[in-house]
C-alpha cells in the first residue's frame, strides 16, 4: 500500500505541477489562449467524468444525462447573468443548485425502475431538456454574451480563469476522494454491490441513490457553468449525447470506480481529442471505437488494471498492528437468555406453494440456535420472513417484545444482521475497509463533515479503525488488513464477512451456511469466533448443512421439513431422533412399500 500510495500520489503531484506551470509554456507559443482553453475544456471534461464516476463507478447508477446536467448548469448561470445580472461567482453556485435539482427529479422519477429503465429515463430527460430549451427560448435556444467572472473590479484573463478551473478541478477531485473514502462512500459501494447486503448493513437504497445523484448533479452543474463562461454562450447542442462520449471514454480508459481513473483517462484522451476536436462525425467515430476497444482489451481501465496487478495492489503487513484497546463489542451482557426474536405461527405462501406452514421459533440472547433441515425445507425462507426480505402471509414476528420493523434496512438498524450464503464482500476494497462498512449504522457524521474532514468525522473514523483492527485480529486477519478482499481464501472471506456483520454491533447475528467450503483450520477459527460472540451476549442463529460443525456449537437445534418444525431439542437429542433421520434420508415405511 505504501508503495502504491507513493507512486500514484507522486504521479498526482507531477501532474499538478505540470498543470500549474503550463501557462508559462503556453505563453511561449504563438497562441497561448488557445492552448489554455484546451486545458480548461479538458478540466471541465474531467470534472464531468468525476461526476459520472461517482454515479456509475461508485454508485452503480447509469447516467446518460450528464451532458444534460452540464447544459442545465450552463443555462442556469447564463440566464442568471443575462436576465438578472447575477454575479458570475454566485452564478456558479446557482448552476450547481439547478443541476442538482434536475438530477434529483430524474432519480425520484425512477426510484422504482431497474437500472436499464433508469438509464433510458436519464436519456429521455436529457433529450426533453434539450428540446425544451430549444423551443422555449428564442433563437433555437442559443444565448450568448456570457462573460467571465471579475476579480477586484477587472474581468479575469484567460490565464486567471485557467487557474480558477484548476482549483475547481482539484475541489472536484477532493470531493470525490473524501466522499468515497468515508462511511458515505462505503455505503454507496455497498449499494452498488448488492442492494440486499446494503440493506442488511442499514443503508436505505432510495435515500442513498438520491444523495449520490444529487452530488453528481452538483458537480456537473459547476462544470456547465465553466463551459458557459468559457465559451460565452450556451446552446441546446451542449446537451447532445455525442459530446458526452468523451466522458465515457475517459472514464473507461482511466478505470471506472477508481479515484484517479477519471483524471488519467481524460488526460490521455484530451490530447487525442484536441487533434480531432473539429472533425465532427470523425471525432465520434474515433472516440466510439476507442471506447469499444478499451472495453475489450482493458476492461478495468489503466488505473484499475494497475490496481489489480501484483505491483499495484497492497501487500500483507509485516507485523500485526499494535492496538491497546480491549473492549470490543458492547452488547447486552446483562440480558443473557432473554428472548431476542419471537416468531409465532409464521405462514408463507409463494403462489400455491406453502413454503412455511405454521412455524414458531424463539431466539434467545447468549445462545447459538441451529436450524437444520433437508433441501427445500424452508430454512432460508424462514429467515427471510423474519428479517422482512419476504412479506409473511400470516403470523407475527417480534423483536425484544416489539413488532419487528417492516423493511430489511430497518431490521438491520434495529440490530438484526444477516450474513448471506453467497459472500458479498467488496472484492476490490481492502479487508479493513470492508469491516468499516459494517459500522455504517453507527456513523453520525453528515456528508459535508466527511468531505471537509471535520472533527466529528475524524474522531469517529479513528474509533472505527481501532475497532476494526481488534476485530480483524480476532479472526487472524490483522496482517492482511490492507490487502484487497479478493485475494483472501474462501474461508477467510467468510470470516471477514462475519466480522463485518459483527462490527455493526448487532444484537442478533444470523449466519446462513457459513461453514460451506471451509478448510479444517478455517472451521476451527469460525467455531471460536461464534463461541466468542455467543459469550458476548449475541443471539446467534446458525443455518447449517454441516451438521458435525453445528452440533459442536449449538445450544438448541430446530429441525424443519416441508415448512414445518419436526423437532426442537439439544443437538444430541436431535441427531438421534428417528423423525429427523427420516427427514434427511427418506421414510423407511415408504421404502418398505416399494418392496423387493
Amino acid at each position: 500500500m505504501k508503495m502504491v500510495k507513493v507512486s500514484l500520489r507522486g504521479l498526482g503531484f507531477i501532474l499538478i505541477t505540470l498543470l500549474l506551470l503550463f501557462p508559462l509554456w503556453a505563453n511561449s507559443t504563438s497562441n497561448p489562449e488557445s492552448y489554455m482553453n484546451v486545458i480548461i475544456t479538458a478540466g471541465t471534461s474531467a470534472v464531468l467524468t468525476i461526476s459520472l464516476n461517482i454515479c456509475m463507478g461508485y454508485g452503480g447508477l447509469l447516467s446518460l444525462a450528464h451532458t444534460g446536467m452540464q447544459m442545465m448548469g450552463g443555462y442556469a448561470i447564463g440566464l442568471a447573468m443575462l436576465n438578472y445580472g447575477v454575479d458570475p461567482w454566485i452564478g456558479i453556485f446557482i448552476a450547481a443548485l439547478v443541476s442538482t435539482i434536475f438530477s434529483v427529479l430524474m432519480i425520484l422519477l425512477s426510484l422504482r425502475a431497474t437500472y436499464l429503465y433508469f438509464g433510458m429515463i436519464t436519456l429521455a430527460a436529457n433529450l426533453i431538456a434539450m428540446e425544451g430549451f430549444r423551443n422555449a427560448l428564442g433563437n433555437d435556444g442559443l444565448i450568448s454574451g456570457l462573460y467571465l467572472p471579475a476579480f477586484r473590479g477587472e474581468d479575469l484573463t484567460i490565464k486567471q480563469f485557467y487557474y480558477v478551473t484548476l482549483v475547481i478541478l482539484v475541489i472536484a477531485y477532493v470531493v470525490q476522494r473524501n466522499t468515497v473514502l468515508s462511511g458515505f462512500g462505503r455505503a454507496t459501494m455497498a449499494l452498488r454491490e448488492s442492494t440486499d447486503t446494503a440493506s442488511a448493513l442499514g443503508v436505505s437504497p432510495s435515500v442513498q441513490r438520491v444523495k449520490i445523484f444529487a452530488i453528481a448533479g452538483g458537480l456537473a452543474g459547476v462544470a456547465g457553468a465553466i463551459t458557459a463562461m468559457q465559451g460565452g454562450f450556451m446552446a441546446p447542442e451542449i446537451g447532445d449525447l455525442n459530446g458526452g462520449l468523451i466522458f465515457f471514454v475517459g472514464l473507461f480508459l482511466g478505470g471506472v470506480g477508481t479515484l484517479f481513473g477519471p483524471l488519467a483517462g481524460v488526460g490521455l484522451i484530451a490530447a487525442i481529442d484536441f487533434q480531432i476536436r473539429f472533425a465532427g462525425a470523425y471525432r465520434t467515430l474515433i472516440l466510439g471505437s476507442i471506447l469499444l476497444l478499451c472495453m475489450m482489451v482493458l476492461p478495468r481501465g489503466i488505473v484499475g488494471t494497475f490496481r489489480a496487478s501484483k505491483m499495484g495492489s497492497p501487500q500483507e503487513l509485516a507485523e500485526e498492528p499494535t492496538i491497546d484497546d480491549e473492549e470490543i463489542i458492547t452488547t447486552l451482557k446483562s440480558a443473557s437468555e432473554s428472548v431476542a426474536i419471537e416468531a409465532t405461527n409464521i405462514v408463507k405462501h409463494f403462489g400455491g406453494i406453502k413454503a412455511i406452514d405454521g412455524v414458531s421459533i424463539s431466539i434467545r440472547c447468549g445462545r447459538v440456535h441451529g436450524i437444520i433441515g433437508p433441501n427445500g425445507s424452508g430454512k432460508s425462507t424462514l429467515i427471510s420472513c423474519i428479517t422482512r426480505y419476504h412479506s409473511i402471509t400470516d403470523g407475527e414476528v417480534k423483536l425484544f417484545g416489539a413488532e419487528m420493523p417492516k423493511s430489511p434496512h430497518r431490521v438491520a438498524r434495529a440490530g438484526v444482521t444477516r450474513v448471506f450464503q453467497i459472500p458479498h464482500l467488496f472484492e476490490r476494497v481492502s479487508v479493513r475497509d470492508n469491516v468499516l462498512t459494517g459500522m455504517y449504522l453507527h456513523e453520525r457524521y453528515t456528508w459535508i463533515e466527511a468531505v471537509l474532514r471535520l472533527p466529528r468525522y475524524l474522531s469517529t473514523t479513528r474509533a472505527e479503525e481501532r475497532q476494526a483492527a481488534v476485530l480483524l485480529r480476532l479472526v487472524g486477519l490483522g496482517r492482511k488488513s490492507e490487502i484487497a478482499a479478493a485475494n483472501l481464501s474462501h474461508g477467510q472471506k467468510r470470516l471477514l464477512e462475519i466480522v463485518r456483520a459483527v462490527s455493526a454491533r448487532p444484537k442478533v447475528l444470523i449466519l446462513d451456511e457459513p461453514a460451506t467450503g471451509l478448510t479444517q483450520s478455517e472451521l476451527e477459527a469460525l467455531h471460536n469466533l461464534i463461541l466468542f460472540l455467543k459469550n458476548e451476549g449475541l443471539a446467534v442463529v446458525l443455518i447449517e448443512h454441516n451438521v458435525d460443525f453445528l452440533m459442536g456449537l449449538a445450544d438448541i437445534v430446530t429441525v424443519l421439513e416441508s415448512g414445518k418444525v419436526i423437532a426442537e431439542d439439544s443437538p444430541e437429542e436431535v441427531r438421534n431422533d428417528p423423525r429427523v433421520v427420516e427427514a434427511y434420508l427418506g421414510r423407511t415405511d415408504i421404502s418398505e412399500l416399494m418392496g423387493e
Partner: protein
Amino acid sequence: MSLQALFDGLFSGSVYGLVALTLTITYQPTRIMNFAQGETFILGAAVGFELVGVRKLPWPVGLAVMLALAVVMGLIMERMVMLPVQLSGSRFAWIIATLAAALIFQAVFSIRYVGDTLTFFPIIDKTFSIGGAAVSAQQIIAIVVSLTIIVFYDQFLRRSIYGRAMRATAHNPDTAIILGVPTKRLVVGAFVGSAVLGALAGFLWAPENFVNPANGLAFTISGFTAAVIGGVGSPRGALFGGLIVGLLNSIAGALFGGIAAGIAVFIALGLILILKPAGLFGKPMDGH
C-alpha cells in the same frame, strides 16, 4: 380531432412497432436492449436514398442490396456488442457497448451522407383521400408490411420449433442449452434478423419523411418506449406499444404542438412504469 393525425399516427405507429419488434428480437435471447438498433433503421433509409433516390435504380434492387447489407450489419453489430459484454464482466458493459456501437454507426452515416436528408421516391406514388385526410400508398404499404411482419413473428414464436426455442432461451438459457439449443447461434440470428427488419422499417419510412442520418438514437428511443409500453418480449406488445406511441405523438402534436408530443409519450411511459411495469402484454418476469 383530425383524421389526418389519426392516419399519420397509424403510419408512424406501425413503423415504431416494427422497431420495437426488432428490440424484442435481440432482447429475448440476450436480455440486452440494443441502443444501436436505430442505426439499422438509418441503413435502410440510406440505401434507399442512395440507390433508389440518387442513382435511380429500381426499388427491388435497392431492397435486395439493403437486405444484404443489413445482414452484414447485423453480424458486425453482434460482435461489437457481445464481445465486450463477454470480455468485460462489468454489468454496464452492454449499455456502453451498444451506445458506442450506436455512435460509431451514427458517425459513419453522418460522414457519408453529410448534408443529405435521406429520402427517396415512394414505391407507388399515389395519394388517396379518406374522409378528408390525405393517405399515401406508401403509408398504406408501410402499415400493411409492418403488421404482417409482426403477426408473422408472433406466429413464428408460437408455432415454429425455432421460435419456441427462442422463447425457451429467453426464459431459461441453461435449460435450453442442455436440450441442445445452440443459444450462441440464436443470438447471432437474432441480431441479423433484427438488423434486417430494422433496415426494412427505415426503407418504408424514408419516402414519407426526411430522415437525418444522425437521428438513429431517436428512433431507438421511440422503439424502446413502444416496447416498454407494450411489454418487452411480446410481438403483440410491440405492435400496440408502437401504435400508442405513434398515435399519441401524432395527435398530441397536432393538438398542442411539437414538445407536447414528446411529453405525452413520456407521461404514457411513466404511467406504465408505475401501474404495470411489465408492459401491457408483458409478463412480470420478462419486464426486466
